């Protein structure tokens, strides 16, 4: 049985060589099901992101906002992170009311109006 670190390294190698990312994802999922390691998917993805950032300088972030982000907003968000290449995945969630919630592999920045209002209600700053 391979360790999580070895598995992450192997996935990283495959990602470098493979062109069919969907096929690769299916293979990885099958392997995790076979090894009964589906509970570790989150940890594996975080380690993979960390490995990519360290080796290639690539950082994937997810920005969730109530409205579509403008180019200026995206630039402002990317400026928060220090990486060669930042890949931003955008999601829209009207329940946030406004602002943005950004998640990187080891960091989360929450500037959503919903969270601010929630903090106001609970008395937290």
């Amino acid at each position, binding site marked *: 049985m391979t360790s999580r670190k070895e598995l992450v390294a192997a996935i990283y190698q495959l990602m470098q060589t493979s062109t069919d990312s969907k096929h690769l994802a299916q293979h990885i999922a099958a392997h995790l099901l076979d090894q009964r390691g589906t509970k570790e998917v989150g940890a594996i993805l975080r380690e993979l992101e960390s490995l990519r950032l360290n080796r290639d300088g690539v950082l994937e972030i997810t920005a969730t*906002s*109530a*409205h*579509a*982000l*403008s180019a*200026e*907003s995206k630039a*402002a*968000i990317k*400026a*928060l992170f220090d990486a060669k290449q930042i890949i931003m995945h955008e999601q829209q969630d009207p329940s946030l*009311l*406004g*602002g*943005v919630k950004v998640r990187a592999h080891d960091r989360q*920045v929450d*500037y959503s*109006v919903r969270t601010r*209002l*929630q903090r*106001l*209600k609970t*008395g937290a700053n």
Partner: protein
Amino acid sequence: MSVLHFVQIIGSEAATGAGHAAAEESTGIAALGLDPLAILAQAGTFLLLFWIVKKFALGKIVQTLEKRHKTIDDGVRLGQKMEAEQAKLEEKVEDELRKARTEADKILAQASREAGEVVKSAEEKASEKVDQMIADAHVRIEEDMQRARKALEKDVLSMVAEATEIILEEKLDEKKDNNLIQRAFARLRA
């Protein structure tokens, strides 16, 4: 023959002799009805009787009388002594009573003083307790006020948040939202 018997005989002979003399001559003293021999005999008898009494009985009588006198004197002295003792005893009793009264007065005064102190102490304790209760009540009231203030503040904040949410839902469009995001990140970088 005893002395008494001898005296009686002499007395009897003298009387008889006197009778004979009186019968023979009734002149001089006899003419007055007095017989000098009889008088002499009676005087001798008296003196003899006196001597006998003095010799054999008077000493004992005097001794008995002195003894009785001494007994009476002793009794009188004892009575006087007892009276003196009684007086002393009464004085002593009076003295003891006086002392007892003084002691009782002292005890009463002490008891009164102690009772006063106990009452004073109880009053002070009660006063302290009341002060403590008032202080506790103040603390509780302050705590209740703080809780009420916080609850009110929370309610107000909640209402403000809900009102803000409603307003933002209506007023915050895409452009304003992006401006908001840019301003927030600009503040973060600064």
